[in-house]
């Protein structure tokens, strides 16, 4: 699934190494895999990092296996392969994401979180949280900072914050230093896949809670 517009905001080397090494939480892996499905440049970079992993593996000293290892392996081989997971059917989102939604964007069960913004939390391991965000054209996600890392990948539409403009395929990597207020561009509603490894810090939580309670 390649997007038509040029992707200008990519994943960091740190995240690509983490994805290659397998040390990221599942929610981050989901954002990375979805971005790689949309971005050939990062896909190529990810493959290079896998190659570095391969070279490191090759350089490791060899270990002597126990006497039973060969017999055990032959027994496992004889048992046959595990059944492969079924491939998701065509969808308006990349395959890795589609597998978590259980279909396309029409199948998402949105919940309002105030100011017209809606979200749907996806089921991953608890180390980090993945959610889909629906920001109506012109609406804003309340001003917030971050305790950990937040990855935001645009699937549809575009948003702007204090740093730049992010369109389909772009990913914003936010950390403790960034305090921002993403606003969806006029014209199209913006749908994002976001992952956080710590709760967000809203600057003004009282108005936000009031707004969501009273639908102001």
């Amino acid at each position, binding site marked *: 699934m390649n997007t038509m517009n040029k992707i200008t905001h990519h994943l960091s080397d740190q995240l690509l190494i983490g994805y290659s090494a397998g040390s990221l939480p599942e929610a981050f892996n989901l954002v990375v895999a979805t971005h790689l499905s949309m971005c050939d440049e990062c896909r190529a970079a990810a493959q290079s990092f896998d190659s570095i992993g391969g070279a490191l593996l090759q350089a490791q000293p060899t270990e002597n296996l126990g006497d039973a290892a060969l017999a055990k*392996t032959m027994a496992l081989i004889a048992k046959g*392969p595990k059944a492969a997971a079924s491939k998701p059917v065509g969808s308006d989102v990349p395959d890795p994401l589609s597998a978590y939604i259980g279909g396309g964007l029409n199948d998402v069960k949105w919940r309002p979180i105030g100011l017209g913004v809606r979200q749907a939390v996806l089921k991953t391991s608890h180390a980090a949280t993945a959610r889909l965000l629906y920001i109506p054209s012109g609406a804003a996600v309340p001003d917030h900072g971050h305790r950990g890392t937040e990855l935001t990948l645009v699937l549809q539409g575009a948003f702007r914050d204090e740093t730049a403009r992010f369109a389909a395929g772009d990913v914003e990597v936010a950390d403790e230093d960034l305090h921002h207020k993403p606003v969806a561009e006029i014209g199209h509603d913006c749908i994002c896949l976001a992952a956080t490894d710590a709760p967000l810090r809203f600057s003004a939580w009282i108005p936000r809670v009031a707004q969501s309670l009273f639908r102001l």
Partner: protein
Amino acid sequence: MATLWHKAHLFDPSRASVSTWIFTIARNKNIDALRKQRRPEPEELTWGPEAEPEASDVLVMQQESDQLSQAMKALPGQQRELIEKAYFGDLSHGQIAAETGLPLGTIKSRLRLALTKLRQTMK
């Protein structure tokens, strides 16, 4: 090892070296076993009808892979160690900082330096 055997028909030597391929399978096994979480993989690219890999592509891949191994060996000890930690230590940069006593900024710049060196060697 059994997984490698069962997946052997999927290995395409024009797209990855043997060591890279084994690395990715070992990594996924490790995630399955230790973390009990799913591993989302990028969408498969559609390459058209599967052709037998070209011998010349396979050769280029082998050469690049050897070149990469050489480049890794040539890295200064500290840089190499950081790359190893990032891959096998299963550590985030913050955790590496705690373990080595190096400030986070130093770790990031050394890792960046190491990657830049590798990229230059591979050009």
